[in-house]
């Protein structure tokens, strides 16, 4: 296990290939749940949690169910099934056993099933390869899920902070609401584009 690989994954998925701002994954919640800072933080935490769990579970599905049976083409259907069930299970488990955590994060969980960032990270874990042609191993997959979730949260929280202030700005009528949110994301994305020059891979 090479520690530097983990650092590379972290920097890559948080900054260089930020899920929202560079890969366009998870735009719906990014626009939908970024109206208030506290819901943005809650959503972000829930996404980190689910992405980490989903990376772990789909790793097993891929390498212990699909690959041995030569069924890689079924991964979309298998992954989405697993992710949907996982989210529902976590939700029920939290509701019963951890009510405080549930009231903080639980309501965000169902929204995550249709968050393409989660399915996206599961597929990218399989598709991404190192320079020597090796795919991510279990630890790297899990770590990638975790850091991609952090990248998502950073983008979401940045956006929510700006949008809370934007509510009060004197905008042209036609830009109020969604349009200005997109224009703002364009500016944030432009800033994140600066990271793409980093050559660490």
């Amino acid at each position, binding site marked *: 296990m090479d520690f530097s690989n983990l650092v590379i994954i972290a920097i890559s998925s948080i900054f260089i290939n930020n899920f929202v701002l560079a890969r366009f994954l998870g735009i*719906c*919640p990014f*626009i*939908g*749940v970024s*109206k208030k800072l506290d*819901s943005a933080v*809650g*959503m972000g935490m829930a996404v980190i949690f689910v992405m980490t769990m989903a990376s772990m579970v789909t790793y097993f*599905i891929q390498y212990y*169910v*699909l690959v041995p*049976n*030569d*069924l890689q083409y*079924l991964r979309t*259907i*298998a992954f989405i*099934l*697993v992710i949907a*069930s996982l989210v*529902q*299970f976590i939700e*029920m*488990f939290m*509701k*019963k*056993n951890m009510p405080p955590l549930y009231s903080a994060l639980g*309501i*965000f*969980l*169902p*929204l*995550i*099933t*249709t968050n393409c960032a989660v399915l996206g990270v599961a597929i990218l874990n399989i598709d991404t390869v190192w320079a020597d042609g090796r795919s991510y191993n279990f630890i790297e997959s899990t770590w990638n899920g975790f850091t991609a979730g952090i990248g998502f949260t950073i983008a979401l929280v940045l956006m929510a902070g700006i949008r809370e202030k934007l*509510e*009060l*700005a*004197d905008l042209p009528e036609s830009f109020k609401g969604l349009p200005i949110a997109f224009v703002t994301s364009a500016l944030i994305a432009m800033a994140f584009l600066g990271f793409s020059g980093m050559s660490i891979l």
Partner: protein
Amino acid sequence: MDLSQIITAFLSVGLVGAVLGAVLAYASKVFHVAVDPKVEKIMGVLPVGNCGACGFPGCPGYAEAVVAGKADITLCTPGGQEVIDAMAEIMGVSASAALPVVAYCACNGTKENAKDRFEYYGPHNCSAAVFASGGHKACDYGCLGFGECVEACTFGAMYMMDNGLPFVDDEKCVGCAACVRACPKGIMKMMPKGSSVYLACNSKAKGKEVTDACKVGCIGCKICAIPKTTPSGAIKMEGDLPVVNYEIEDTLTGAKFKCPKACFIDKSDSKKTAEEIAAEKEAFKAKEAKAAEAAKKAALEKAAAAKEKGSVS
């Protein structure tokens, strides 16, 4: 065509599905928690795509918010009119059961009453003004008068008065509390529709500060909260500000007339003439004096009785 391949695919993904189904079904029993049936009903009519278009985290979040009265029923864009109608039906049955309430403004800081600490030239809305070190009013708790609450009202029950305060039309107010959520200072509050007297100050500041900023601010003298003024106990002090519990029925006449800063406002006053109000005040004073005399008498008698008792023993 290789049949064995199809069978492998059928079995492996089928088994994954079966295991997940079993786990979920089992979990739903083990981790069962009772939910408000109304939330479940709304979940039933919502298109559970969990798209987040309503601004809430997923359909369950929205359903809960609707049931809790924190959200409009019109926010589900993918569902369209059908869903709105269905939700209106579910919510309509339940909404009428609640006690009718109306909004009121817990501040009497009109342009004459309350001082400004600086001139504000920013965007004309309350939330923006709050960012300029809490607003231009000298009182940190006072109404800024840009009418964000009025904008939030979708029923036309509010308008801004010339004195810089919002007015709530009790007849039109449906008690949706949209204005309560809109006010960045937390001045808008809800009270029962029938009640007439309310506390029109929200200042938690010390007496000196309040007098410097506003002519009609609560100085925290506690007169309204003592049992002698309000025997029902509907007013309690919380720090330097009294809190009125509107659920306890009380006319609050004591507080209204005894408050040295006249922080309690009677809605019915606006319909009376000045003479009537003065007469009412006189009547209260007379009653008060009578009661005081009676109390004095009683105290004297008591003292006398005690003395007598003492001499005997």
